[in-house]
């Protein structure tokens, strides 16, 4: 009680997204149970938990895929109502999907702009604006300090480069929140460093990043705060510097009840 009062009084002024007592059940199954937390600009929040802990259900609610069964979400102190994933994008929430949602047969630039192609012309006579798309994609890659080139086919890219393409998508608009689902799960160790750097760049631009990951070292390297879920409830929400991998492992497995 004390804690939530504190949250409303001080943190709410700067938090971008606030979840209050969010629950989600699918029939008799309680996937997410009474979870509250808030996201701050320029902060990386690690969301951890075992399979079935409710991570993806929670993320899908923030992404507009599911509607909460109860509880409320506030975006900059305004109630957030979403019915489909496109709504989330309009509210400044971008998602980097676990499988990256890339088309191998298209160029990096085409993938970045997929579904949001730039066009020139009027009315029904609009054609794709290749030049602007190549340019903008190139600028975003430069901003992310990625070596990805806009005209390269995604088919021939490394895991880190592919991740950069997926992350570049979130830079088309000026999102407030970026949700990243297991961005380091399927790539080589060397590329992990590259991706963690990309996450830092997003953070430095004042974006609230939510990092969903199984990989303890990655979360401890890049996250400012860690939230641990176990069987649908939040069992920890603390600064990374005040926790340890051992404690988090304990929280995930249930060896430690709560922290």
């Amino acid at each position, binding site marked *: 009680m004390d804690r939530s009062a504190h949250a409303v009084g001080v943190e709410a002024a700067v938090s971008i997204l606030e979840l209050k007592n969010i629950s989600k059940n699918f029939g008799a199954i309680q996937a997410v149970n009474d979870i509250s937390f808030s996201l701050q600009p320029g902060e990386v929040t690690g969301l951890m938990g075992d399979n079935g802990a409710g991570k993806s259900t929670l993320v899908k609610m923030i992404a507009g895929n599911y509607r909460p069964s109860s509880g409320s979400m506030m975006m900059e102190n305004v109630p957030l109502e979403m019915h489909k994933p496109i709504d989330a994008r309009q509210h400044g929430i971008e998602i980097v999907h676990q499988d990256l949602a890339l088309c191998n047969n*298209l160029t990096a630039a085409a993938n970045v702009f997929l579904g949001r192609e730039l066009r020139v012309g009027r009315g029904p006579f609009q054609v794709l604006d290749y030049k602007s798309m190549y340019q903008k994609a190139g600028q975003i890659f430069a901003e992310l300090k990625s070596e990805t*080139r806009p005209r390269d086919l995604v088919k021939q890219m490394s895991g880190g480069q592919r991740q950069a393409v997926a992350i570049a998508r979130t830079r088309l608009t000026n999102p407030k929140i970026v949700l990243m689902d297991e961005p380091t799960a399927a790539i080589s160790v060397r590329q992990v460093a590259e991706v963690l750097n990309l996450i830092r760049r997003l953070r430095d631009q004042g974006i609230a990043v939510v990092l969903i990951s199984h990989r303890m070292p990655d979360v401890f390297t890049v996250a400012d705060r860690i939230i641990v879920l176990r069987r649908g409830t939040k069992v920890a929400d603390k600064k990374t510097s005040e926790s340890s991998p051992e404690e988090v492992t304990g929280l995930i497995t249930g060896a430690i009840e709560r922290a």
Partner: protein
Amino acid sequence: MTTTLEKTIDAKQQSWLSEKLGSQTFWVFMAVVAACVFLSFATDSFATPKNLYNITRNVTFVAMIALGMTMVIITGGIDLSVGSVLCLCSMVLAVVMHAGYNIEVGIAASIATALVIGAFNGILIAYLDFPPFVVTLGMLSIARSLAMVTSGNTVVFEFGPDHQQLLALGGGAWLFGIANPVIYMLVLALITGFVLRWTRFGRYLFAIGGNEHAATLTGVPVKLIKVAVYMVSALSAGIAGIVQTGWLGAVTTNIGSGMELQVIAAAVIGGANLAGGVGTAMGAIIGAALIEVIRNSLGLLGINAFWQGVFIGGAILLAVLFDRIRNLRQRD
């Protein structure tokens, strides 16, 4: 900093030339050219205006539909119903005109038929998740049967008051002695090429063929695009049917039978990948041209027509073999 950024933006994996040299379409085109050169020397009858006129005109019907088919194949789908749709659309045109309506009404009815069939295919495939192969296989049977019902399984060769106009439309040569169907084919090819390269619709076709799930997640209206592409395919069959009716001057219920296989062969020889995500308008035309040149040359060289299937089948396998070799090399 700015110069390196410019360089990165302009950097290409391959030069224009090496990209062309690496494409299947280019090599099939070279094969067509080589065959034409060889035949001009080997036979007296190949390079005659009459034979060239025949070849170019014969190419067109398969090529027109191959354009629509290529779009479907790019999305990772297939349309087996095009031959039957061609027949049904021809028959609708013929019956409507035979009943005394003018040519505009006939063409409108025919095109409407094509669009309805395409929409039916597309809705089953996109919204009810039927496999394209099964839906269009069913339509192959349905459309031909409907053509028989429409005409009472008779041959229609009298097209009412606008009879002459219809024959001129398909059989004439209004521009520099080039057969009309060839002109239509070129116009359709240009439109298809433009759509594939420059429009959002074209981009979405490639995206759906490359990764349908990704296209859905990024907000591409996948289902609508799929319905539209089967409508385009049926429309291309309908247009080919209208032109072919004018050229033949008669419609029977067996025109276009087995044509779907030639059309798919043309698209595949021209570089369309049945797994989706790859294909060009130019490829469809060149693929159709290769098939026609093979057919024509066997006749001129005095080879038994029974061998035709072997040569066309061989061309399909050879074209895809090139593609496999290139892919293997890229993987290394």
